[in-house]
C-alpha cells in the first residue's frame, strides 16, 4: 500500500492533476439528481468508448477497399478468433448508442434541462445526435454488402434532388460517377477520422459545460427559470442541499453503464453480428435492400410521401427539424421546467415516438413492396379452387402467371401492395372488375395490353368467385333491367 501511495505521490508532484480531478468528481450536485432518470448521458459516453475500442479492433482486420471489404468481413466472421463477437459488439453498440442518445435527449427535453443557462449544452447535444446518426449511416456503408451498395444508391438519389448542386453533390458523395472503390474509401475516412473527431470534440465541450454549469436540478412544478435569478438559486440549492457527485449520484451511472454493456454483450452473443448480406455486386439484382434499424422509419416514410411532394419534403423537412431543435432553447429558454406543467412538450414527444415507432414497424414489414416470388412460390389456397368451373380455374392460373399474387394476397398469403382479394367480389361487380384489370388505377398498373380478352374473361370469372359463402357478390342491378330479364345474367 505504501508503495502505491509513493508512486501516486511521484506522479502527483509532476502532473498535479489529483486536486482538479478530485474537485471534478466530488463537485456538489442537487440531491434529487441522484436519480435513475439521470443516467443516460453517462451511458451514451460509455457506449461511445465501447465503439472506439471495438472499432479499433475491427480496423486491425478490416480492409477499406471495395474489392476486399466484403471478404475481410467474412474473415472477421469466420476465420478470426471471436472476430464475429467484436463485430457483433460494434454493431449492437451502434444500435444501443442511437437509442440511448435519443432517450437521453427525450429526458433532457422533458426535464427542461435545455433552458437557461444550458442552451449551448443542448445545441452541442443536437450536433452530437447528428454526428451519431452520421456514424450510423457511414458504418452501415462500411459493411460493404448489397444493402450498403443500394443504400448508397438511395442516398445518392436523395442528394441528387437538391436544386442546382444536386448532381455535383452525388459525385462528391460517391467520389466519382458511380458507386465504386472511391466511394468506400471516402466513407471509411468519414467513419474513422472525420466524424469521430467531431464526436470527440463535441463530447468534450458537452461534458465541460455539464461540469461548469452543473447538472440540471430536478424540475419542480411551479419553480420558474428566470435569467436574472437562476444562477443564484442553483448555487444555493447545490451548496446548501447538495451532495458530492461521487459517490452520491455516480453509483447509479456506474451501475447503469455496466448494465448497458452487459445488454450489448448479451445481444452480441445471442443475436450475433449484422451481415454482411450478399456480395456488393450490382449485377446481382435479386435483392431487396433494407436499411439498418435506425433508418427504417425514413425508408417507410419514402414509400408513403406522394410523388409530387416527396422532393420538397425530403429536402426541407430535415432542415426544418434541425432548425427547430437548435432554436428550442432560445425560444423557450425561461419558464416552467417540469413536464407536469408542459402538456405540449409531452404530447410532442408522444407524437414523435408514435410516428417513429409506427414507421419503423412498417419499415420492417415493408407491406408496400411486391412479394417478388409470390407468383411462383405461393400457391392459391385449394379452397379457392374447389367446385370451380374450368373458366374460373383458368382465371386462377392467369392470377398466378401474371404475377397478381405479388401485390395481392389470398388467405393472408402474397403481397400487400394492393388490397387483399379474398372478398373482392363483394366490393366490385363484373364491369368494375374488368375496368380495374384493364385500366388499372388507384396505384395499380393497367393490364389491358398484357392480357388477351380470353385471359381477362377468365381472370374476372375467378375474381367473381372471391366472396364468403352465403354472401351475394356485388352486381349491377341496372344491367338486369337493361337486358329486360328479371334476374342477373352472369355474362351477356
Amino acid at each position, binding site marked *: 500500500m505504501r508503495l502505491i501511495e509513493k508512486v501516486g505521490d511521484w506522479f502527483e508532484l509532476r502532473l498535479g492533476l489529483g486536486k482538479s480531478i478530485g474537485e471534478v468528481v466530488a463537485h456538489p450536485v442537487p440531491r434529487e439528481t441522484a436519480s435513475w432518470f439521470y443516467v443516460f448521458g453517462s451511458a451514451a459516453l460509455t457506449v461511445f468508448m465501447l465503439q472506439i475500442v471495438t472499432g479499433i479492433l475491427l480496423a486491425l482486420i478490416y480492409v477499406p477497399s471495395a474489392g476486399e471489404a466484403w471478404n475481410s468481413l467474412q474473415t472477421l466472421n469466420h476465420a478470426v478468433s471471436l472476430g464475429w463477437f467484436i463485430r457483433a459488439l460494434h454493431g449492437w453498440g451502434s444500435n444501443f448508442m442511437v437509442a440511448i442518445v435519443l432517450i437521453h435527449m427525450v429526458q433532457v427535453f422533458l426535464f427542461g434541462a435545455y433552458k437557461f443557462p444550458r442552451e449551448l449544452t443542448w445545441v452541442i447535444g443536437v450536433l452530437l445526435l447528428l454526428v451519431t446518426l452520421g456514424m450510423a449511416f457511414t458504418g452501415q456503408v462500411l459493411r460493404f454488402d448489397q444493402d450498403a451498395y443500394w443504400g448508397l444508391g438511395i442516398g445518392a438519389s436523395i442528394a441528387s434532388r437538391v436544386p442546382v448542386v444536386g448532381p455535383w453533390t*452525388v459525385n462528391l458523395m460517391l467520389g466519382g*460517377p*458511380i458507386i*465504386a472503390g472511391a466511394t468506400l474509401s471516402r466513407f471509411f475516412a468519414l467513419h474513422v477520422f472525420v466524424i469521430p473527431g467531431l464526436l470527440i470534440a463535441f463530447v468534450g465541450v458537452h461534458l465541460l459545460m455539464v461540469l461548469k454549469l452543473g447538472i440540471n436540478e430536478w424540475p419542480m412544478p411551479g419553480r420558474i427559470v428566470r435569467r436574472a435569478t437562476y444562477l443564484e438559486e442553483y448555487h444555493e440549492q447545490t451548496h446548501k442541499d447538495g451532495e458530492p457527485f461521487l459517490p452520491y449520484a455516480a453509483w447509479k451511472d456506474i451501475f447503469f453503464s455496466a448494465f448497458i454493456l452487459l445488454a450489448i454483450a448479451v445481444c452480441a452473443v445471442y443475436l450475433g453480428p449484422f451481415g454482411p448480406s450478399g456480395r456488393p455486386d450490382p*449485377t446481382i*439484382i435479386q*435483392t431487396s435492400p433494407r436499411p439498418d434499424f435506425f433508418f427504417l422509419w425514413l425508408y417507410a416514410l419514402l414509400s408513403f410521401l406522394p410523388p409530387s411532394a416527396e422532393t420538397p419534403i425530403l429536402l426541407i423537412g430535415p432542415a426544418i427539424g434541425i432548425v427547430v431543435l437548435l432554436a428550442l432553447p432560445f425560444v423557450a429558454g425561461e419558464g416552467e421546467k417540469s413536464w407536469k406543467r408542459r402538456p405540449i412538450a409531452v404530447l410532442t414527444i408522444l407524437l414523435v415516438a408514435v410516428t417513429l415507432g409506427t414507421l419503423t414497424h412498417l419499415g420492417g414489414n415493408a407491406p*408496400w413492396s411486391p412479394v417478388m416470388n409470390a407468383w411462383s412460390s405461393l400457391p392459391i389456397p385449394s379452397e379457392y379452387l374447389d367446385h370451380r368451373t374450368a373458366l374460373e380455374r383458368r382465371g386462377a392460373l392467369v392470377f398466378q402467371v*401474371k*404475377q397478381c399474387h405479388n401485390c395481392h394476397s389470398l388467405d393472408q398469403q402474397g403481397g400487400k401492395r394492393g388490397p387483399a382479394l379474398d372478398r373482392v367480389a363483394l366490393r366490385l361487380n363484373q364491369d368494375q372488375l374488368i375496368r380495374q384489370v384493364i385500366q388499372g388505377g388507384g396505384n395499380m398498373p393497367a393490364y389491358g395490353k398484357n392480357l388477351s380478352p380470353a385471359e381477362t374473361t377468365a381472370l374476372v370469372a375467378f375474381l367473381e368467385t372471391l366472396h364468403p359463402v352465403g354472401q351475394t357478390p356485388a352486381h349491377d342491378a341496372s344491367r338486369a333491367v337493361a337486358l329486360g330479364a328479371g334476374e342477373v345474367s352472369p355474362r351477356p
Partner: protein
Amino acid sequence: MKAETTTAENSMSRRALLVKIGLFFNGIIGAALVVPVARYLLSPVTREKKGGYDSWLSLGEVEKFPAGQTRLATYRNPVVNAWDGDTDDIACWVRNVDGQNFQVFAINCAHLGCPVRWFAQSNLFMCPCHGGAYYQDGSRASGPPERGLFQYTYKVEGGNLFIKAGEMPTPGQPVANKAGEKTTCA
C-alpha cells in the same frame, strides 16, 4: 523613468506588430493552400484528369436480344480502378422492341435507385424497395416514382449494341432527364 516606460511600450507594440504580421503571413499561406486542397476535394466533380465518362460501351451482339423480349445485360463502367471489386460491372435492361428499335433501361428505379426486376409474364418492371412499377416501355405504371425508367442512348454498330453510359442515373441529373432520347446511327 519616463523614457524607460516608453521603450517598454515601444518594444511591446513592436512584438505585437510582429505577431500580427506573423498571423497575416499564416493567413496568406493558408489561403494559398486552400486552392490545391479544394481542387483535390472537388476532383470527383471537376474530373480534371480523367476522361472517358459517357463512353460508348458494348452490350454484346444484337442476337443476344431477341425481338419483342426484354433481357438483362451488363457492361463495364468506362472509368475503373483496380480496387473497385465487383462494383464496375453494371446491369441494365435491354428491350428489343421490334427487331429494329431498342430501349435500354437503367437498372436503377427512378424513385431511389434500387434495382428493378423485369416480369416478362405481366410485362412489368417492379422495384423491391418501395413498390414502384413500370410498363414494358419504361413508362411509370404505379408507385412512388415521379417518372419512367432512365434510358441510355444506344446505337447498333457492326452487329453489336452500344450504349452511352458511365454515370449512375439519379433523378436530379440533367443526363437522366433526357430519357427517351435515342440515336439510331447504324
